[in-house]
């Protein structure tokens, strides 16, 4: 209490935020689907982080005598290769475990890029109004006129595939959703009394945006980001599948499915399991995102 009169309101605000946080958390945990999603996601993240310890084999080790080993429960399966081996004898399960690294890393990093670009433009469009708003919404219109994946594919090919290129290009295909959501929220917020009051008390434009407008868009941004990570993982897989993968040392899930496509009539397990890995991961994130939306913010479409 030594700071005097300012302290109590701040503490009240902090307490309120804490209460809000635990309310959201309780809502999230009470939903069995979201809880299952959270458990699955923790397992996937764990597998990605501790891949060298989790993976039963070296994902790059080839063995021609072991090629096309079926999964353990099928006829001819071996206990060393739970999910079987691919056309050059590499262990599928180990490759999936290592593949989680690329998927999660690219997914999260791409969303960080779109978040930064999209939120900045959304704040500017909503706050500055007028010409700036017209220009930004026109750019969004133009951007939405392309099949996003095709544009990403073309730019990755032009820039040369590398993890950084994939992250930046995927990040730049998803930014406009943030811009649309944040712009709409700021347009509604800027008419509110507390914004007027801040302006009247002499707050600069930058301070008004960063201290008063931005924090009020956080819940929408969190919900949107969760769902966008799921989208980015699907898009990264599609890019690898179409042949412009990240060029990284690790196998990717999309690349594994693409390789399996050529052997679909002789070895069904090549494409099936990496696809299931994508499905389970993306489903888990979508379930969490959907619950978060219900708990935090019903407005984000």
């Amino acid at each position, binding site marked *: 209490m030594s700071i005097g009169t300012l302290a109590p309101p701040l503490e009240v605000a902090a307490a309120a935020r804490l209460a809000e946080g635990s309310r959201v958390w309780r809502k999230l945990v009470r939903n069995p689907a979201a809880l299952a999603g959270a458990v699955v996601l923790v397992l996937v993240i764990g597998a990605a982080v501790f891949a060298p310890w989790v993976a039963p084999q070296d994902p790059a080790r080839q063995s021609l005598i072991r090629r096309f080993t079926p999964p353990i429960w099928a006829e001819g399966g071996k206990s060393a290769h739970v999910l079987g081996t691919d056309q050059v004898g590499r262990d599928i399960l180990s490759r999936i475990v290592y593949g989680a690294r690329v998927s999660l890393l690219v997914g999260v990093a791409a969303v960080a890029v779109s978040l930064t670009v999209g939120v900045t433009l959304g704040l500017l469009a909503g706050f500055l109004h007028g010409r700036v708003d017209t220009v930004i919404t*026109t750019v969004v219109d133009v951007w*939405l*006129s392309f099949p996003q994946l095709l544009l990403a594919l073309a730019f990755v090919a*032009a820039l040369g595939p590398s993890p950084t290129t994939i992250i930046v290009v995927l990040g730049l295909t998803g930014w406009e959703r943030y811009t649309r959501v944040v712009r709409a929220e700021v347009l509604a917020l800027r008419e509110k009394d507390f914004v007027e009051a801040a302006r009247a008390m002499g707050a600069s434009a930058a301070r008004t945006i960063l201290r008063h407008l931005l924090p009020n868009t956080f819940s929408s941004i969190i919900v949107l980001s969760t769902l966008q990570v799921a989208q980015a993982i699907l898009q990264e897989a599609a890019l690898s599948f179409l042949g412009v993968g990240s060029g990284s040392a690790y196998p990717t899930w999309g690349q594994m499915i693409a390789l399996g496509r050529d052997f679909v009539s002789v070895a069904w397990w090549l*494409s099936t399991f990496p*696809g299931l890995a994508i*499905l389970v991961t993306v489903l888990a994130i979508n379930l969490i995102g959907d619950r978060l939306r219900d708990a935090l913010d019903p407005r984000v479409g």
Partner: protein
Amino acid sequence: MLTLLIRRVVRLAVVLVGVTLITFSILHVSGDPVSLMMPEAPEADRVALRAAMGFNDALPVQFMRFLGNTAMGNFGQSFFHRAPALPLVLERMPTTLLLSMCAMGLSLALAIPLGIITAIRRASFIDYGATAVVFFGTSMPVFWTGIMLILLFAVQLRVLPVSGWESWASLVLPTITLATFSTPLLLRIVRSSMLDVINLDYVRTARAKGVSEWLVICRHALINAALPLVTVAGLQFGLLLTGAIITETVFAVPGMGRLIVSAIRQLDFPIVQAGVFVFAMIIVIVNFTVDLLYIYLNPQIRVR
């Protein structure tokens, strides 16, 4: 209404220039288009090509030339096919549109009745079932769905062809694949736009007057739910085309999507630019039509 129309047309023109700019930038984003087009050529050839293609001019000059060429439909010669790029893309357009329309038709046939039923019978068994289908459908990679369908119907049951484009049977699996991608998106929109109108006063009034339930749904609720449905369906069209591009690649369907994906692998940039531009044009035209339809369907604007 006229000023609104004029404003829409002006926006259309601005968007078209923007689309051309982004198409232009595909070749120039790396800084040196020549090393992109011929990575292993000796320096003398590069200098010659740079001069022949006009890459030495200032970028704005190059863009104005590109804009002019685009307006004339000239995207240059395909390196790989040794023929003008745009006709190569356009002659494959009917295939892509046929696939997209079949999938869209199948999706609508599933999504509209299901969306209505799940909106009326909220929290019922069928509603939960549909929600689960939506979650799975939006979490599955399209290309994987396609391969799983090949595995089931072409490899195990041997009832449908694996890939290619010879008969009507080859259309079945690509259509189902694309529809599993687009149906969940549409189903979600139909359900939520029905939920928005179904409890409004005029619907309740119609019920109170003794109008049969079936008529209430079709005549009163569905017509008013159509407006948001049309708008969002138009916005989702780009997603449908993305799905079509991937589906064509999985099933070796000879459409625009497959042409462009292989052109990207071969670094055949005239085809890539022509293809990206054509896809964007389709989306722009669809969205413009939706805009006009919205003006026409919305009595609040039409009367003014």
